[in-house]
C-alpha cells in the first residue's frame, strides 16, 4: 500500500474511532446530563444509571483507543492538539474521573446526602465533558493560533469564544437527545413516560442549534466548505445529515424508538464525517499562517509504522466489534435492578 493511501486510511480509521466514541459514549454522557431531570426518586435514578451500568466503561475505551491511535498514526497532531488544549483537557480528565467514580461509589453507602453528592457529580461531569468535547471540536474546526514548529501561542481564553461555545452547546443537546432516546429504549412504565415527554423539547433544542451552527460555520469557517465545493459528490454528507435529523421525530412518531436511536447515531456519524471533510487535509489549521498548520503529511508516522498499525487494527478491530456485540446482546432489554446494580 502506498504511503499516501496508508495515511488516508488512518485518517479514516481515526474518524471511525471518533464516531464509535461519540455514538457510544454520547448516549451515556446524555444519560448523565438528563438523569437529575428525568428520574424523580432513588429507584428511578438507579434505573437510569444502571441503563448504562455495564456499558459506559467499554464506551470510554473508544476515546482511549482514539488517543492511542492518534499518537501512533499522527504523533505531531497528538502532541500539538493535547498540549494546545492543556487546561481544557485536564478539565475533561477531571470530568471523566468524576463520572467513573460517581457511578461506582453512589450506591455504596446508604445515605441520602452521599447519594445526592454523587448524583450532582455525575450530572456536572457528564455535562462538562460533553461541552468540552464540543468546544475542542469547534476550535479544531475553526483553526487555532499555531506558531512555528507547531507551538500553540494562544491560551485557554482564546479557545472560549462564541463559535466553540456554540458547538459545545450543540454537542450537549445532541448527546442529551441521543441519551433520551436510549433511555426510552431501556425503561418502562412511568419512567419511560417521563423520558418520552422530554424527547420532543430536546429534539427542538437540538434542531434549533443545528440550524444556527450550520449557518455559523458557513460564515465563520469559510474553509470548511472548500472541499464540498471542490468535490460536489460530498454534498451527500450534509444532505444525509439533515435527513437523519428529520428522521428522529418521524421515527418517534411512528413509535419505532430503535429506529430513532439508529437515526440519532447516524446524525453523529454524519457530524463526524462533515468534520473530517471540513478539516481535510489539515488536522489542525493555523490561523496565524497556513504554513504552520498540522497536516496529514507533516503529522504522520513513518510508512512502516502506519503499515504495522494497520495489521494491528485488522486483527484487533474484528475482535473488538465481536465482543462489543456479544456484550450489548447480553445486556439487551429493559433495565432491571439486582444486587449487582449500582
Amino acid at each position, binding site marked *: 500500500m502506498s504511503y499516501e493511501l496508508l495515511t488516508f486510511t488512518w485518517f479514516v480509521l481515526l474518524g471511525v474511532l471518533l464516531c464509535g466514541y461519540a455514538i457510544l459514549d454520547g448516549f451515556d454522557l446524555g444519560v448523565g446530563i438528563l438523569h437529575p431531570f428525568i428520574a424523580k426518586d432513588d429507584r428511578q435514578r438507579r434505573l437510569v444509571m444502571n441503563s448504562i*451500568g*455495564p456499558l459506559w*466503561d*467499554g464506551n*470510554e*475505551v473508544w*476515546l*482511549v*483507543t482514539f*488517543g*492511542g491511535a*492518534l*499518537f*501512533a*498514526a*499522527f*504523533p*505531531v497532531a*497528538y*502532541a*500539538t*492538539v*493535547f*498540549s494546545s488544549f*492543556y*487546561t481544557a*483537557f*485536564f478539565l475533561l*480528565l*477531571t470530568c*471523566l*474521573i468524576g463520572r*467513573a*467514580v460517581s457511578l*461506582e*461509589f453512589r450506591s*455504596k*453507602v446508604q445515605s441520602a446526602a452521599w447519594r445526592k453528592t454523587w448524583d450532582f457529580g455525575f450530572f456536572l461531569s457528564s455535562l462538562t465533558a460533553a461541552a468540552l468535547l464540543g468546544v475542542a471540536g469547534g476550535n479544531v474546526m475553526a483553526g487555532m493560533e499555531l506558531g*512555528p*514548529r*507547531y*507551538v500553540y501561542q494562544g491560551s485557554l481564553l482564546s479557545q472560549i469564544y462564541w463559535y466553540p461555545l456554540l458547538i459545545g452547546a450543540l454537542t450537549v443537546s445532541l448527546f442529551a437527545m441521543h441519551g433520551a432516546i436510549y433511555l426510552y429504549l431501556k425503561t418502562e412504565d412511568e419512567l419511560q413516560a417521563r423520558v418520552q415527554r422530554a424527547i420532543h423539547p430536546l429534539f427542538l433544542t437540538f434542531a434549533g442549534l443545528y440550524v444556527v451552527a450550520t449557518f455559523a460555520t458557513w460564515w465563520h469557517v469559510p474553509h470548511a466548505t472548500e472541499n464540498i465545493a471542490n468535490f460536489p459528490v460530498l454534498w451527500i454528507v450534509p444532505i444525509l445529515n439533515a435527513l437523519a435529523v428529520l428522521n428522529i421525530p418521524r421515527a418517534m412518531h411512528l413509535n419505532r424508538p430503535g429506529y430513532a436511536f439508529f437515526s440519532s447515531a447516524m446524525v453523529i456519524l454524519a457530524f463526524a464525517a462533515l468534520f473530517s471533510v471540513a478539516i481535510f487535509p489539515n488536522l489542525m489549521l493555523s490561523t496565524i499562517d497556513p504554513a*504552520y498548520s498540522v497536516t496529514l503529511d*507533516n503529522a504522520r*508516522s*513513518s510508512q*512502516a*509504522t502506519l503499515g*504495522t*498499525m494497520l495489521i494491528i*487494527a485488522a486483527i*484487533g478491530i474484528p*475482535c*473488538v466489534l465481536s*465482543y*462489543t456485540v456479544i*456484550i450489548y446482546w*447480553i445486556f439487551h432489554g429493559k433495565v432491571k435492578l439486582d444486587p*449487582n*446494580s449500582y
Partner: protein
Amino acid sequence: MDVEILSRLQFAGTIMFHYLFPPLSIGLGLQLFLCELAFYRTRNPAWEAAARFWTRVFAVNFAMGVATGIVMEFEFGTNWAAYSRFVGDVFGSALAAEGIFAFFLESGFLAVLVFGWDRVGPKMHLFSTLMVFLGSAFSAVWIVVANSWQQTPAGYHIVWHDVQGEQVPRAEVTDFWAMVFNPSSVDRLTHTLIGALVLGAFFVASVCSFYLLRGRHDAVARRCLSIALPTALLFTLLAGATGHDSAQKLVETQPAKLAAMEAHFETSEEPTGLYLFGWPDAANKKVHFGVQIPRLLSLMVYNDPSRPVPGMDQIPEDARPPVWLPFQTFHLMVGMGTLMIMVAGMACWSWYRGTYGERRWLLWAVVLMPLAAMTANQAGWITAEVGRQPWVVYPSVQNGVEMMGMRTADGLSESVTAQQVLSSIILFGIIYSLLFAVWIFVLNQKIQHGPDSPEELTDYKRRHKEESMSDSIRHGGTAYGGSLMDKETG
C-alpha cells in the same frame, strides 16, 4: 519552579497514584479466576460466595484504575509534546495496541463479570473472568514494552525531518519485533507482572486472615486462603528470581542505573560489595552509615565474586542519575521482598501443618502484607524511572552506530507554562486525595461487610429465579398446588 520539575512531579504523582490500582486488578483478577474455577469444578456455593465477593472488590478497584489511567495517556501529549513528537512513531503504536488488544477486552468482559452473575451461565462467566484477567495482563504487557523501549531502545533509527526549514530528529521503527522485544522488555515485564500477582495473592490472604482474626466468614476465608497463601509464596519467590535477572541485564544496558541503585561511586580493581543499607551522599561520593557485604554485588551481577562492577565514575558527569532516591527505593523493594518471602513461607508452613489461625501475630503479619507488596511495587517503579534520568529515552548502540536518545528536559511541551502545570497539579492533588479517601472508605465497607454466607447466597438465587419467572407461572401455582408467591410472602 520551572516547567521541567513541575511536569516531572506531576507525572510521578499521577503515575504513582495510578499504579496503586492496576497491579491489584491484575493480581486480584488471577485470584478471582482461581476462585471461580474452583466453583466451576466443585459447584460448592462457598466458592461462589467468595467469587462474588471478590468481584465486588475488584470492580471498585478497576474503576479507579481506568479513571486514573486515561490521565496518563493524555499527559504524554499535554505535558511532553516534544517527547511525543520524537517517539510517537515507536511509542504510540504500543499504546494503540494496548487500547485495541487489551483495554477493550478487559472493559468489555468486565461488564459480564460484574453485572452478569444472574444473566449468563457459569461457563460464560468463568470465561469472562479469564478475559478480564488476560486483558489487564495484556495492558501491562504493552505499557511495560513501551516503557522498556525508553530504557533500552531497539529496532529504530533516527530520521531528520524538515519542519518549516528546521531539521528535527525523530525515532522511527525499523523492526517492530525488535522494538517489542527490546533487551529489557521480557525481564521487566515478568518482574512487573509477578509483582502484581504477589499483591493480589497477599490482598486476598490479608482480608481472609482478618476474617479469621475476627472469627467471621470462616468457610469462605479458609477456602480462599488455600489458594492465596501458596500463590503468595510462589510469586514472591519468582519475584526474587526475576529481579535478579533484571539486575544482571542492567549492568550491560544501564550501568548508570545499577551504580545509582548501589551507590557505587568509584570503580576499582577490587570486587564490588553490596550495601545492606546506608545514606548515600553523591556530592562527597560516600555512603554514610553504610553496611556492606564484600563481593556480593560482583557475585550477583556476574555470577563471579571477583569481577568488579563499573561505578558511577564511568558515566559522563552530565548523564548521571540521582543516587539517593534509587538507592533507597531499591533497598526498600528488596527489603520488602525478603520480608514477604519470610511471611509467606511461615504462613504456608503453618497452613500445611494445619495450625494457621492459631498464632495471632502471624495472622496480623499476613494482614499487613499488602502494604509491603504495594510499597515494593511503588519502590521498584521509582528505582526504574529515577535511575533512567536524565534520559527520557536512553541513547543506545545498534550495529555499532550510536543512536540518539532524548533528555527529559528536552521532552517538554513548549507551549505549556509553569503556572498551567502547577494548577493542574493542585487540581489533581485535591481530586486524587478525595478519591483515595473514598476508595479506602468503600473498600473498607466492602471488606467489613464481607462475602454472603453460602446459605444467604442459595436463598438469594432461589428468590431471583422466582422473580425472573413470568407472572403467570409465579401466580399460577406449582405442580404441587399453592402459589410460590404465597409461600414467599407467608
